[in-house]
């Protein structure tokens, strides 16, 4: 179907869209560990991440038919689509948590766990900046991205891997809000330039 091998994620999502629960079970089996890692990284808490993943997979089951392999002529990897769903659910959960005022607690967790510049505590999870640098290296754009100052890369990394808002990034980096917004903006622009030059993404 669609020229994809029958056991590809594309074909399995197409099966799920037809209501084939066994295909959906295979989509889960193939992707849940990766997506759970992403959710735990953002939420800092396994139970919260499981809640987010549950909502995300129910949404994937219901909306599998809306996955498009191409948008505007460009190919969309199924995993990209799945990551976007999980990150959106995680962002919703994070913002709801902020609204509930439980944020000091989270902030504490973040401080302990994720200050990449000064790793501390017993948590051995890699910091946001470290994950960012690893991704740059794996994509072979670390040279290209090195033109950016460290604070640009770190603000982008905190926003992406931990789902922090501008204000939260500013607080965490002890930097002015306006600067953080500009750093992230510039970081995204640079990321696009480097990915395009490398031919990895549009």
């Amino acid at each position, binding site marked *: 179907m669609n020229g994809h091998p029958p056991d590809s994620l594309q074909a399995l999502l197409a099966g799920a869209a037809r*209501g084939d629960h066994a295909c959906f079970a295979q989509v889960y089996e193939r992707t849940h560990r*990766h997506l759970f890692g992403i959710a*735990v990284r953002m939420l800092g808490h396994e139970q919260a991440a499981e809640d987010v993943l549950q909502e995300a997979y129910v949404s994937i089951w219901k909306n599998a038919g809306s996955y498009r392999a191409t948008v505007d002529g460009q190919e969309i990897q199924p995993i990209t689509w799945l990551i976007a769903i999980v990150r959106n659910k995680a962002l919703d959960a994070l913002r709801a948590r902020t609204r509930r005022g439980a944020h000091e607690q989270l902030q504490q967790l973040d401080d302990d766990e994720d200050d990449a510049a000064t790793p501390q505590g017993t948590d051995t999870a*890699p910091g946001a900046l470290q994950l960012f640098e690893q991704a740059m290296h794996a*994509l072979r754009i670390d040279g290209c991205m090195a033109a950016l100052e460290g604070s640009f890369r770190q603000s982008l990394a905190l926003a*992406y*891997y931990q789902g922090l808002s*501008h204000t939260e990034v500013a607080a965490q980096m002890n930097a002015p809000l306006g600067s953080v917004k500009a750093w992230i903006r510039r970081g995204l622009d640079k990321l*696009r330039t480097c990915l395009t030059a490398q031919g990895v993404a549009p």
Partner: protein
Amino acid sequence: MRYTDTRLLDALASAYVLGTLAGGARRRFERLQRDRADVRAHVAQWEQRLGQLALSVPARQPSAELWRAIAARTRPVGARKTSSSRWPAWLRPAGFGLGGLAAGVIAASALFLSAPGLFLSSDQLAMRSGERLPQSYVGVLNDAQGQGRLLVSSLRHGKTLTLKVLGTAPLTGPAPALAADERLVLWALPADGAPFAMGTVAASGTQVSTLPDTSEKLLSKVSRLVVTRERTATPSAPSADVVLSGSCAKLW
């Protein structure tokens, strides 16, 4: 806010995907996406770019409870009801609830009673008059002691499969009973191809299910049937743990 400026749209899309676009602006942008394909294209591009960053995040294993919770909320109602016989999805009658089935049976019966000639082949008429059995595929599976334990039958040109467990002893015999995550799966072993699953087998009683095609198409080259003990919900090949085995024959 002007939404005609491509650069602005692109900046909004990047902030949306990153997550820094928050509150009312985020909700407005989501509405805009629903209405405009060009906005969705910007978002898709940024999802493609930022998705690359996720590749370095270490994978983690959630609890097994997570899948149970997801499955409970997603598994189609028909399959959830018959917890003792979790048929693979391809064996499930698609979109065909019990209500539809009952209505269909009633409608078909009414027509059948008023005009039987429309429905009956000469073979079926012969069967009704008691001369012979209908053309069917029939299998009898025995346990390790040679006792017949499972009767499998399906009309040659029909799409209904009937399984009847014979006797009352556990199908698993002297081996340990099925664990919660185990099931018995019926496999057809074609002479010239890979085995394919025909569904799970309940511990007792008679089960009826719908085949994805006629038995003639599925079973014409099948001479052996086995039931194995499986640990996964949708095994791709039979395990070595064979519980029952037998022949599949054409009854004509």
